[in-house]
């Protein structure tokens, strides 16, 4: 590609012209430092995660057993009068065992595998059920990795998103979460990693918050363990 070589050559030439070296590094004080409210160390990450998620308008609960997690999902499906739940096709959710009881209650369950038209299924579903690779205590975020069986739109198109996450997966901070993917091998990253921090929202109309703009407005996280 001739264009590419030329393009980069021009840039190389300009960066190395060396006529000017910026020296205005911001060495001045920035942002008043009256006593910081966020301590650098988070004592109880799962508790902090649930707190932050509530502040964002999400719902979280910590349970000790998988049965409790299952009950939570079933109760939610009833409450939302769900007709279709779409879920990630991963072993953790197989184990959760919601498919049969949901079916008994007349809720259709679609697995994220061999779908003819994923747009139709995810678009029609009332609830999307997934796990998350990590959760971040500091911000109440979920870290979702795309991949086979792990649809991106499962966590986006249905109005309700429920994630089941093991407490071991709760990290303290954003840099810690980003650090899990840093380190240099270009091949190592999944094609999609996304941090979801609470329900979808827009403030474009007079800065009044509208919840559930394009993604789910109803977000639930169940921490297990």
């Amino acid at each position: 590609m001739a264009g590419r070589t030329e393009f980069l050559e021009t840039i190389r030439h300009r960066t190395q012209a060396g006529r000017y070296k910026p020296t205005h590094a911001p060495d001045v004080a920035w942002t008043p430092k009256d006593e910081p409210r966020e301590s650098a160390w988070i004592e109880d990450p799962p508790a902090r995660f649930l707190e932050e998620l509530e502040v964002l308008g999400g719902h979280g609960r910590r349970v000790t057993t998988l049965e409790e997690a299952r009950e939570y999902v079933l109760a939610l499906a009833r409450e939302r009068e769900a007709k279709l739940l779409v879920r990630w096709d991963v072993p953790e959710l197989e184990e959760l065992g919601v498919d049969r009881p949901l079916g008994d209650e007349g809720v259709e369950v679609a697995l994220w595998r061999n779908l003819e038209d994923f747009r139709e299924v995810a678009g029609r579903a009332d609830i999307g059920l997934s796990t998350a690779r990590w959760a971040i205590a500091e911000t109440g975020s979920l870290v979702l990795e795309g991949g086979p069986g792990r649809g991106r739109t499962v966590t986006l198109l249905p109005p309700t998103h429920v994630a089941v996450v093991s407490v071991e997966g709760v990290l303290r901070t954003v840099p810690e979460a980003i650090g899990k993917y840093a380190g240099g091998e270009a091949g190592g990253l999944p094609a999609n990693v996304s941090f979801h921090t609470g329900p979808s929202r827009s403030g474009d109309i007079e800065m009044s918050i509208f919840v559930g703009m394009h993604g789910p407005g109803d977000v639930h996280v169940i921490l297990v363990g």
Partner: protein
Amino acid sequence: METQKPARRRETEDRRHEGIVSGVEGFNERGRKAARDKELHDSVELFTGKAVAARNAVLHALPEAPELRKRAYRIKQETMANLDRYLEQMADNVEARGGKVFFAEDGEAVVRYIGDLARRKGAKVVTKSKSMATEEIELNRRLEEDYADLDLEIVETDLGEWIAQLAGDHPSHIVGPILHMNRKRITEVLSQAAGEELPPDVEALGSFARKRLREKFLAADIGVTGANFGVAETGTVATITNEGNARLVTSVPPVHVIVMGIEKLVPRFEDLSVFVRLLARSGTGQKLTVYTNFITGPRDEGELDGAEELHLILMDNGRSKLLGTEFEEALYCIRCGACLNVCPVYRQTGGHAYGSTYSGPIGAVITPLLKGQKDAKDLPHASSLCGACWEACPVGIPLHELLLKLRNQQVEEGMKGKGETLAFKGFENTMKNPALYKISGKAGRLVQKPLKKDGSVRPLPGPLGAWTDSRDLPPLAEKPFRDLWKEGI
């Protein structure tokens, strides 16, 4: 589609020609008009006031914020010094992951690339997530005009941006595109799109938009996004939104096109931990934006959603001219909008007065740099040089100094009119001579009488007009301070 045609504007002009490519009218006239618009002023005040308060609160709560700012500056400095190498690394990594890379010298090349791609794909619906880079090159308008035969339906999916598109308007703020519109106006625009009267409440308006845009998300053949950051080390592109629109634009259509300014690169993935935190806290006062999305190449083997085809367009469009110059720091900008919110000029005029894609202090700096000084010569003067912009900038760009350098350049290139040069010469002579100074005050008070109005002096006639063109002249006091002092005040 009928609904995509711009609604008839009530009082404002068609703003789709206000990218970097189109000429910009003088700031001064627009600014003066805008500053008198009470409705606009209220809207701007509401947004900037809330934004500044939220930003301050959440940044104060981050003890390492000053340290992050320093790191951000250093990372960008390092990036620009080696930009050719990082661009090459970015391109190699995207290609290694199966993506396609195109280097675009200017907006024209971007329009051609996307237009031809749409033709090849037989695309009908293109969804877009808000992108200043595509605003800058007037992508939508040019695709619609230059590729009219494709009959493309191009849909902006950010709520504010969509409303702006429906109204034939363009964003007046990097982060809050329609902060200049009040609810009444928004209700008008959306009611027209709905074909029925919608109630003027956020719930109803938002729900209508969600429903209508959902159809578009699902029907899209191509998704176009900008990039908040690109990571050279991994070939990753970050798209960051609160609504989730970029997430849908990148997940549903089979083809994803990214238009990324070459300055958006960072070298390493770990650098993102500095930038995503600064961007969220400075831009919207959040700890983290709701959807912080990292895309590395097209969908993986076995995935059902996510784009099958990914095109990364690395766009220069005048940026590389700043490399290695005294204006290089203007390229460090991460488009958070914090400098707009604190700027005493922006807060009086709003964004449209700047006449182009980028407004506020960063706009006053980069518009003349990207467009050429001659086509935007008022802008470097649209500042009081108070430095609030620099103070607010999460990357520490010395915006006020860059503005001063631009003014300097104008003087050196003889761009200021003869009148102003003459006036300064006269001012200098008068100040050096006490007798002349005394007389000039008396003469001034006499001369200003016919010009005084509303507590400021009307534009001066003749060559002196160059001075009052760009600033309101405070009237001379009835009695000079010198005389009051003598009288014992």
